[in-house]
């Protein structure tokens, strides 16, 4: 069961993210494992959440 799509109304504020041509996506990263995430964090390239 996915809940969000059923809860959203026209008044719900929604931010559009990547894969949507209406926003300027500068960079996109796909992180698949915790080690990569940790390494990137330590290099200060990204931070968790």
């Amino acid at each position, binding site marked *: 069961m996915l809940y969000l799509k059923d809860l*959203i109304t026209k008044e719900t*504020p929604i*931010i559009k993210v990547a894969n949507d041509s209406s926003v300027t996506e500068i960079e996109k990263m796909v992180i698949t494992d915790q080690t990569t*995430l940790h390494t990137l964090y330590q290099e200060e390239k990204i931070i968790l959440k």
Partner: protein
Amino acid sequence: MMYKMNNIWYYFKVEKENRAYPFYLIDELMGSFLAKKIEISSVSYLIGSRKQKKNKYQFGLVSKNFKEPEFEYCFCDCYQELCYLNSKKFYDFENYKNIENLKIVCGSKEETYRLIQQILKMLALDLFMLQKDRNNSNIQFQINKKTQQIELAPLYDFSNCIPKIEKEGIYLKNYILRLTEKTIKELLSQYPMFSAYLTYLLEIGFTNSWKEICASYAFNQNSLAYEEILKYYQEKEESQRNNLSLYLKK
């Protein structure tokens, strides 16, 4: 998945089928909401959408990167390493003195008090939410680069909450202090504020919080999804009131 938009990093948590934790994104909203109620810093969420093929959209939660330039950040294992260096013993996850030992990383009594209160709030919230996985990656400290004062970084991740206490008893992973029957009793006897935070969360409850969340996000309250989530939180609230009040009375 991380995105950078207008030079700001965002984390986008896409909603997926999750049999173990079907309400995991709703629990994220609930955790963030209750954190604000007990005045502990937490990430905030917006609803996000991402366009897929054939005009289909994926929905999820978007949170802004909480990292501020005036702070340095470290994960919880930094604290455990310090404890080890000080005591030369293995870190005991079920020793309530792990809380008092936070003074090791603080420079003054005031700083220690503030940090301990933040940790107690986190533990009370995790116990109320029944968050099972407050692992090393889910606890960060932030250190002010100028003053070197340390505090808990904004809280995140409530996606592993269980609906009620399991038959085997309470066992909630936490990299500062694991929450078990033993440690909960010790926390309640040693820290009156822990009892106060837990009591306050029980007063706030899940049901009214869910209604407030729905109002703030303009969610559809005439949907089956709303009713199903409401039922989940009503049952969880009753279960938690029955179980946690037994600890609080002792």
